[in-house]
């Protein structure tokens, strides 16, 4: 019976190892989210400027990261950058770069959207009391748009965390990779190991992502 296989999760060091893999996953996600978030806000502000060239370049950057599936991005950065640019980075750092750039791209669009949805009359009344453009962003636009962008940003964060599952594809020893090793090493004793290990990883991801999704919902409702 399948349910007898649940012990595979707790056998020996298995659970600790899964947690170790999970930490790699979380580490990559956290660093990317932090750096990508800051970068995304900067780029988002730049995208509201009227400079055509700037807008075009940033738009191109966004669309590139939007259109290409993350798997392909990972391979692109993992293999091609080092070979053709003599940059040699370990897989985990490549992953951080890819996720950071992706986060920044998507976040920049959210930030731009939020900035642009601050009502026009707010901008005008700022101008009417003589604020300069910098002051307008600092005192009016950015503080007001933060509330607007939070739910979308948090949803993006869960997407980044979920997508770290692809780390497996570039040989980072993330939670799924460790899981596969465990399934492999225990296959004789636990023929249904795949069911339990993949099931456990499924719930690990859920446990990490669910609070964010709750938070995003709450913020959305309070709006």
């Amino acid at each position, binding site marked *: 019976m399948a349910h007898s296989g649940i012990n595979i999760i707790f*056998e*020996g*060091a*298995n659970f600790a*190892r899964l947690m170790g893999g999970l930490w790699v996953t979380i580490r990559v996600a956290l660093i990317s989210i932090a750096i990508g978030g800051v970068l995304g806000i900067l780029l988002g502000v730049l995208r509201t400027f009227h400079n055509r060239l700037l807008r075009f370049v940033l738009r191109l950057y966004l669309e590139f990261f939007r259109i290409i599936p993350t798997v392909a991005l990972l391979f692109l950065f*993992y*293999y091609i950058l*080092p*070979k053709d640019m003599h940059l*040699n980075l*370990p*897989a985990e750092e490549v992953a951080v770069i890819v996720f950071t750039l992706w986060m920044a791209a998507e976040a920049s669009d959210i930030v731009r959207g939020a900035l642009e949805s601050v009502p026009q009359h707010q901008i005008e009344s700022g101008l009417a009391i003589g604020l300069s453009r910098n002051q307008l962003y600092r005192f009016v636009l950015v503080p007001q748009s933060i509330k607007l962008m939070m739910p979308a940003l948090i949803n993006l964060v869960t997407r980044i965390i979920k997508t770290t599952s692809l780390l497996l*594809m*570039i*040989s980072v*020893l993330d939670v799924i*990779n460790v899981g*596969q*090793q*465990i*399934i*492999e*090493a*225990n*296959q*004789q004793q636990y*023929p249904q190991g*795949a069911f339990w290990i993949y099931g456990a990883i499924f719930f690990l991801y859920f446990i990490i992502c669910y609070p964010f999704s709750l938070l995003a919902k709450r913020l959305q409702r309070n709006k």
Partner: protein
Amino acid sequence: QTTQAASNNSSVKAIQKRGTIKIAVFQDLPPYGWVNKKGKLRGYDLALARQIAKDLGVKTKFVQVNANNRVDALKANKVDIVLANFTVTPERKQEVSFADPYMKVSVGVISKKSKPITKASQLKGKDLIVTKGTTAENYFTKQSDITLQKYDSKTQQFNALKNGRASALADDNSYLYAWVKNNPKYTVGIKSIGPKQYIAPAVKKGNKSLLNWTNKEISKLSKKGFFKDSYNAELKPYFGSEVKASDIIVESK
């Protein structure tokens, strides 16, 4: 020559200066390169890897690879050397430099004991599992009439077989023997198909320094009987009686 050496950061000197050697290994392929229940990397490839590091006087850094990214791992300087059951083929020789072989192998096919597949002709019109980037894939891709299911990793391919997703699975016969021993419902119905092939360490093309060193190392270890010991320790417990050491080990030239 000095400029080349300078830019070659996988040369023996560079590795020794760095104090670590980066080695590409499988981590899901018992008994060659795998992680045991305690989370320790083990296997025939791993034993060789550790010995090489020891003889170079450096520490090891293992990089996990799948079959289809072994070449790129070298090209992209992710690793200094590949010890991941890497079969020597003409195509691969164009991309990387192989040292002298340390194992013999050929493609085998496993199937259910109850519905054994013993001839390639029986595979016609059936599904066959392979792993991307293996010699088995290469061999069967050239045969028409067989539907290949191509997986990314060994774990995935064996799981798929056990779930009955295809009639058979083709891979290097060396690990098929080991796998069948653990999974007695299956049999290596085709023990060897296609040309006899060799498994060897690989380094980045042009890395003469490490290549020469490795060749010497292999011949030295071979003379010392290292591979025989290693066979007994890492492989023998996992193989059935139908396999002998001489089927696997390459005698030193």
